[in-house]
């Protein structure tokens, strides 16, 4: 038990060191802009279809479920407010982050893991390049920028999905009323936490993926293990951190 705890604390310490080094590299050259743009394309543009699809369906599902529940209280007209608050505050950021974690934390961990077991990381160090600067920092920047943008898109498409269910399908609310209520429901606090969350999740996803990738050992089997660990770990951290951010923002209100 003590060994397990020691390993856990040591791993967390290693993770924090990696996070510290990659953040410090933001302010120190050389900067690999090409790699940042490449990663932005892979992580952001690459995730767009799946994020859009999930956003649309999650909005539609919330509208379907809420229409029934709200109808019980004669409050069907509040559907826009509920969808908008749920999506922007919670579901948009968390669902998008979970999808990107499944897609990119695994991708990052397996790519870096394969590089590690084929000595490409050692080769990079031997050739005088810092692997954290070259591999981790660009992924960190790319994910931290792209995840909030993806979340905004997911939120918007989610609202359209909910609109399609509430207005043309169920006819429980007028079009103008839906958009006005969903827009007016949002205050600065909601937008702030809706954008802060994906920014923090983006950092977590990239750093966790890189962390497990760079500590891969044991050949191809090790790569598989790192990939799984990265996705599980990133997903758990997303839930823990969303709880913490919620706690802070609820307190602010």
């Amino acid at each position, binding site marked *: 038990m003590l060994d397990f705890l020691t390993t856990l604390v040591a791993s967390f310490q290693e993770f924090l060191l990696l996070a510290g080094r990659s953040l410090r590299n933001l302010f120190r050259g*050389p900067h690999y802009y090409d790699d940042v743009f490449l990663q932005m394309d892979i992580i952001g543009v690459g995730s767009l279809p799946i994020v859009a699809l999930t956003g649309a369906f999650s909005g539609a599902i919330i509208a379907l479920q809420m229409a029934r529940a709200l109808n019980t209280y004669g409050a069907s007209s509040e559907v826009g407010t509920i969808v908008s608050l749920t999506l922007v505050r919670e579901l948009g950021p968390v669902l998008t982050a979970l999808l990107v974690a499944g897609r990119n934390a695994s991708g990052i961990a397996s790519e870096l893991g394969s*590089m590690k077991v*084929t*000595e*490409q990381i*050692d*080769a*990079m*160090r*031997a*050739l*005088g*390049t*810092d692997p954290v600067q070259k591999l981790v920092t660009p992924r960190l920047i790319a994910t931290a920028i792209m995840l909030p943008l993806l979340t905004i898109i997911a939120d918007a498409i989610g609202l359209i999905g909910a609109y399609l269910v509430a207005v043309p399908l169920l006819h429980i609310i007028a079009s103008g009323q839906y958009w006005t209520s969903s827009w007016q429901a949002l205050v600065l606090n909601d937008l702030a936490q809706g954008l802060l969350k994906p920014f923090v999740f983006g950092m977590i996803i990239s750093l966790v993926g890189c962390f497990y990738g760079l500590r891969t050992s044991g050949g191809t089997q090790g790569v598989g293990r790192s990939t799984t660990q990265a996705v599980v770990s990133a997903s758990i951290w997303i839930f823990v951190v969303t709880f913490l951010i919620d706690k802070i923002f609820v307190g602010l209100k």
Partner: protein
Amino acid sequence: MPEEPILEFKDVSLRFGESWALRNISLTLEPGETRIIFGAAGSGKTTLLKAVVGLVRVDKGSIKLFGQDVTKLSENELFVLRRRAGVLFQEGGLFDSLTVGENVEYPLVTQDNLKQVKAAQAGEAQTFDPEKLVRDTLRFVELEQTFDKFPAEISGGMRRRVGIARAVVTEPLLVLYDSPTAGLDPITANTIMALLAKERDVRNSASLVVTHRYQDGEIMADFRYDSEQEALLSSTKSSPPPKPALTKFMVMKEGEIVFLGTRPELESSNDEYVKRFVRHEDRHAQ
């Protein structure tokens, strides 16, 4: 005044859990010297090479590379020092997302200092053409035609040669070769060793060569590359014989150096462990 050694290990030790990876290692490598390192699997050969450039940190002792103590430098300071040594990894260690040409160019692109030096040598900044240097180096390993190919598209032996090209493109004073011939057929293996001897004699670089094949050591010890004839000449069969290379042999066991000496000393050793690394037909022929 005698030249300062390129590399100096003083009482270096490193433990991985219960076992010793390196144990009280002391060695010196002179400029232009070739050191062939034999040893069973897990005897610490690769760890020794990695320790030279600080890819693994040792527990005890000092390692001086080009006069600087590797054990006292930070990772960032090491990046600068490492650029002065070339390393060939066991499997080549090529970046599979880059083409062969880009792989060989990598040390030049990342090494701004070197670019400036080369530019100064060339007279003006515009005349230093990294691509020309890359093509020349690929021609050196006879693989110029693979410039635009990806590492996955070429054979294992070719990848090893591209690895050599990448290691020597900056003309380092010290090159570390980790099992350059492992897993290759004898003909390809001999081609690679001939390249190593050529690199040493054309550029007068020092090298550490980790290997399992005794023939690799023989080639390095007995042959010299003649630039005029563009061929390897045997120092025992050619006339007049070329000046013998400064080659020493070292045998490692469980992290310790159990033998250090010249080829005749190695072949006359009575130690059972050391004898395992000497080719038997040579011993019978004597």
